[in-house]
């Protein structure tokens, strides 16, 4: 800078135009992708754009979508959870077995399942906070623990003949001509609840601040250890709800369930525009991410494309989403 030059006006001081601000929202890209996919499949299949088909898509994504809510919370703190599918499987088999064998009343079985899942989450959170260990390693270990416990407890047997309360969320109600399951409704409500908690409460602000920098959060007076354990425990509880959704949808307790759901939940979070580096993203984005996977699978199936191509396309979409995240971060710096 020369002394004669008048200093240029810093461009950051200007109010960004509404259009630019809209484009910089991380959820806009995923939403556009979802809508484009819907338009594409509507033109390529007569069955795609029907209420019944959309109800089916939501049923297909509700379990992974619910897991992805917990995953979003953890990723926002700059963590990761590889154990959520296995925790859900254990919670599901526990609820199913306790209720089917009549050890406890069905509602108590459900409550115990939710509590045990929350306990797994709390264990993850305590290990991440107190030891402290990287979330990747802790949840990788917990994945194996929960997986093994599921098979030991169930003796590899599928649990059938479940009492009514465990399958109640699989029942449907009508919106016009379309049958919608109560489980789908519960999933949507959960997304709205967590959108509210993250966007409208101090707790949500603290989660974002923790993901930006634990040290800044601590010096600001946020009790970061307690917050981290709270986030993992809450996520665990949500996995318990996913377990109930799973059991009600399949009607059985299946020890083989959920084996790739951990990675599928990460896929949904990433496709929804949430940064794996923490502190950036929206839980509604995760819903959109889960729907993108669901719509692609459903649409390609209706077009008669083999399922392995669905997996191929999902993989390409994930890499695209992460690339966009990286590039947008670089522009900020």
């Amino acid at each position, binding site marked *: 800078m020369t002394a004669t030059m008048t200093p240029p006006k810093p461009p950051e*001081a200007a109010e960004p135009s509404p259009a630019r601000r809209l484009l910089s929202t991380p959820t806009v890209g995923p939403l556009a992708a979802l809508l484009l996919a819907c338009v594409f499949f509507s033109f390529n299949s007569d069955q795609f754009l029907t209420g019944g088909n959309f109800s089916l898509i939501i049923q297909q994504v509700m379990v992974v979508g619910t897991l992805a809510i917990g995953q979003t919370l953890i990723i926002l703190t700059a963590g990761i959870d590889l154990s959520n599918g296995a925790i859900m499987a254990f919670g599901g088999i526990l609820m199913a077995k306790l209720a089917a064998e009549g050890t406890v009343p069905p509602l108590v079985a459900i409550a115990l399942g939710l509590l045990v899942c929350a306990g797994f989450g709390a264990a993850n959170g305590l290990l991440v906070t107190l030891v402290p260990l990287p979330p990747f390693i802790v949840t990788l270990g917990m994945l194996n623990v929960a997986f093994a416990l599921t098979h030991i407890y169930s003796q590899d047997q599928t649990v059938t003949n479940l009492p009514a309360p465990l399958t109640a969320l699989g029942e449907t109600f009508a919106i016009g001509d379309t049958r919608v399951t109560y489980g789908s409704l519960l999933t949507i409500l959960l997304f709205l609840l967590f959108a509210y908690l993250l966007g409208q409460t*101090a707790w949500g602000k603290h989660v*974002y601040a923790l993901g930006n920098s634990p040290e800044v959060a601590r010096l600001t*007076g*946020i009790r970061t250890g307690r917050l981290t354990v709270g986030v993992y425990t809450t996520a665990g509880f949500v996995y318990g709800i996913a377990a109930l959704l799973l059991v009600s949808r399949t009607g059985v307790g299946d020890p083989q369930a959920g084996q790739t759901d951990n990675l599928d939940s990460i896929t949904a979070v990433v496709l929804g525009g949430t940064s794996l580096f923490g502190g950036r993203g929206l839980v509604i984005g995760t819903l959109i991410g889960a729907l993108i996977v669901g719509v692609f699978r459903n649409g390609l199936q209706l077009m008669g494309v083999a399922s392995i191509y669905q997996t191929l396309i999902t993989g390409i979409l994930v890499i695209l989403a992460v690339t966009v995240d990286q590039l947008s971060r670089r522009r900020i710096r």
Partner: protein
Amino acid sequence: MTDSPSAPVPPAGTAQTPVLQARGLVKRYGHVTALDGADFDLMAGEVLAVIGDNGAGKTSLIKALTGALQPDEGEIMLDGRPVRFRDPLDARRNGIETVYQDLAVAASLDIASNMFLGREARRPGFLGRVFRLLDHRRMREESARHMAELKIGLRSLTQPVESLSGGQRQGVAVARAVAWARHVVVMDEPTAALGVKESGQVLDMIRRVRDRGLPVVLISHNMPHVFEIADRIHVQRLGRRVAQIKPGEHSMAEVVAIMTGALRLDADEQAVVADKEAARAIGLT
């Protein structure tokens, strides 16, 4: 603590009672003595610069005064009352706000959220009490007021702070500290990462803070900045305060010489040679 940032109470302390004072602070880490009987006095309405070579114990002193470390010995007094801070939050509850170097703001949150981080305002009544709903509008309005008072030129409070320049980001951190501080604002190297123009903006901000009646403790390596803005200079050396200097009465070279131990102040506050070799090394005779 009030649940809202407010104008500071009229300058606490009088000409006789320092706002923040320390006597004989000692902090040892194994064989290393970081603080060796350090004293500290901050008077009402002044900007006090704390300078010292690396390892002189500046950081330990400031950490002890802001609750980030607990001294082994010694006493800290706020408005003449002995106090003991368990952690940084405790010091903040007592009206001491600190702007930490590089660790001031949460990058992806907007300005208003950063201003109120950890002390968010909730909506009045049922919505706030039961649903914990944040009062975004009130937080934005109060943030705008505080930013305007420090003349930090920003047109939008909803931008994430990572989209701001370094100086503006530092401005947000300073505004937050000033908004909540009731007694003291401590700034650790606030201009270290900034360019010339932005440093000037931050120095202007510090003057405005002082003009509002809040005393400021400024830790800095930058001698021209220190001489430009400080009312008094606290020179820290080997874990102690070795001199308190008025910038007008001594030259920058003398102050640097005192900092390195080549000169010392005698009973009449005249700089005299303390270490002939060191003095010769830096060109003093």
